[in-house]
């Protein structure tokens, strides 16, 4: 007579209600562990988002000394001449501020061909054309436009916390020429013309921050990187050329090895949770030894008793885990608005939810396995004697 899982449900519910306080504490511990996991996953996602969208066919050249040390703008023309480089564009960090000096905007001064390399920006052609024809114009993302209520045609005064204008004016007035949409790129960036920026700053003129090279053949990346770097070897501004992914990763690593931190913290927390849950289950089975023997006496199979204990463990971790992930989702959604300017991708990725669910099952199964095995192995006659 097979015992279906449904037959165990009434028993499962009753068993879980036995020690409500202990159950609540155990679920709360698991909830906190999974909430921490979700929040760390959101932080990791935010800090490594650039790594995920990095193109395979793109290289980035920076000053060998540091990402923030510039290079002569003449390098851009020379890099464009390197065999295998289809296009090259430059970027400079502007250090943008709008109204509130404490809120750092993501503003880049770029060469006009930047959007020929990055095709994952959706820009109205008329707006792009308008931007290309007006060096005082800017292209902005939907996120920042919504936040500040910017519309196409608005004149926006941007300040910089790095540069001053030669003419002494306090701000760079820019006209919003277009608002881009993108599902993978940060929707909070402002793009200015390099020429507009370069002609007006008091120092660092004719310097470029970094160069992005789009390759003819993505497999030729290492050879082209060597060609570029050897071209500027022994010059005052030597270059370091890497894949876009490597640069994004190294940028993320400046904060720390996020993946390793996440793994370490999550491992420690889950190990503690494993002990807590396993202890709860072991106690629960020990207390119910005579009852489990009665169930077997009544005709419940060894397998049914094993399933009952395992299901109990999985249900506890399942409820705690799902509540934890749910709470982490609410918290990240609540914090995302405030962090938009610094961590635009602060959200729990789908892969983390799947990983979380896998952890729920693994934790429940591991914590419940030994008590369930012991319950299955109970000898009825011996166990009844303990009642």
């Amino acid at each position, binding site marked *: *007579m097979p015992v279906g899982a449904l037959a165990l449900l009434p*028993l499962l519910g009753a068993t879980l209600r036995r020690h409500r306080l202990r159950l609540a504490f155990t679920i709360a511990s698991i909830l906190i562990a999974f909430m921490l996991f979700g929040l760390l996953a959101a932080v990791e996602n935010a800090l490594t988002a650039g790594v995920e969208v990095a193109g395979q066919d793109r290289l980035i050249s920076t000053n060998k000394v540091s990402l923030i040390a510039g290079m002569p703008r003449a390098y851009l023309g020379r890099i464009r001449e390197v065999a295998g480089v289809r296009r090259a564009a430059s970027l400079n960090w502007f250090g943008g501020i709008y109204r509130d000096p404490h809120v750092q905007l993501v503003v880049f001064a770029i060469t006009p061909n930047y959007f020929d390399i990055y095709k994952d920006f959706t820009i109205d052609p008329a707006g792009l054309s308008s931007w290309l024809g007006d060096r005082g114009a800017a292209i902005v993302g939907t996120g920042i436009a919504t936040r500040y209520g910017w519309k196409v045609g608005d004149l926006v005064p941007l300040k910089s916390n790095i540069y001053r204008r030669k003419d002494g004016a306090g701000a760079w007035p820019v006209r919003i020429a277009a608002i881009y949409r993108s599902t993978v790129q940060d929707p909070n960036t402002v793009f200015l013309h390099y020429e507009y920026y370069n002609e007006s700053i008091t120092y660092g003129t004719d310097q470029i921050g970094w160069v992005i090279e789009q390759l003819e053949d993505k497999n030729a990346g290492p050879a082209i990187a060597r060609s570029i770097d050897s071209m500027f070897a022994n010059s005052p501004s030597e270059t370091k050329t890497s894949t876009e992914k490597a640069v994004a990763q190294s940028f993320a690593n400046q904060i720390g090895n996020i993946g390793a931190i996440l793994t370490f913290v999550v491992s420690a927390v889950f190990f503690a949770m494993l002990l807590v849950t396993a202890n709860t289950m072991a106690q629960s089975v020990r207390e119910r030894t*005579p009852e489990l023997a009665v169930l*077997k006496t009544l*005709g419940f*199979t*060894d397998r049914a008793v094993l399933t009952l204990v395992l299901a109990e463990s999985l249900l506890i971790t399942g409820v705690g885990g799902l509540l934890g992930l749910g709470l982490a989702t609410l918290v990240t959604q609540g914090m995302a608005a405030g962090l938009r300017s610094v961590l635009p991708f602060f959200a729990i990725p789908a892969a983390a939810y799947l990983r979380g669910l896998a952890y729920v099952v693994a934790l429940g199964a591991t914590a419940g396995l030994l008590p369930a095995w012991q319950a299955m192995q109970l000898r*009825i006659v011996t166990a009844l004697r303990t*009642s």
Partner: protein
Amino acid sequence: MEAPLVEVRGLTKEYRRGDEVVPVLAGLDLDIARGDYVALMGPSGSGKSTLLNLLGGLDQPTAGHILIDGVPVEALDSDELAAWRARSVGFIFQMYNLLPVLTAEQNVELPLLLTDLSREERRRRARAALALVGLSDRATHRPRELSGGQEQRVGIARAIVTDPLLLLCDEPTGDLDRKAGDAVLDLFDALNREAGKTIVMVTHDPRAAARARRTLHLEKGVLAREES
């Protein structure tokens, strides 16, 4: 002549305690007819509880055969034994062994979870069994809200709800006062005489044994004498 419901032949049970072998049952032969009501008596260690456990398939004999309604119980594996117990045997314990988190009705319904019956039908049968033991008004009470006698009657309802062939009772009145014990024994009488249930009851209480049709006295693992 109708074959006995229970046929026990050469039943032997030994336990090991380190290197020492402790014999509990020594080649016991026993027949129990359908509808019989048997009391097993004997001093502690005589093997009566062990015999009850072996009849119920809760333990395996060292040697010998147990045939119950044609089923060789000692030859069944663990899953077959569980299914056979669910179908054929009702157990009544001295300490009732009800699940404290379940109501009286849910406790009685427990064995029916192993059947294909609908939830409504399970509940209907559980309520009918509770009515039979006179506890309809206690269906929603948990064991701690019942007296010892009432708990034992819930235990009896749980044992009979699947309409088993055989009721095995281990000191069913051992923890009850005289009045509650008598009520339980009255129930056994009714189940045996009116419903035709076969009952095997281990007891130390001569008054309880006097209610049975036969009393078997075990001593040192063998049948010492029988009274009718």
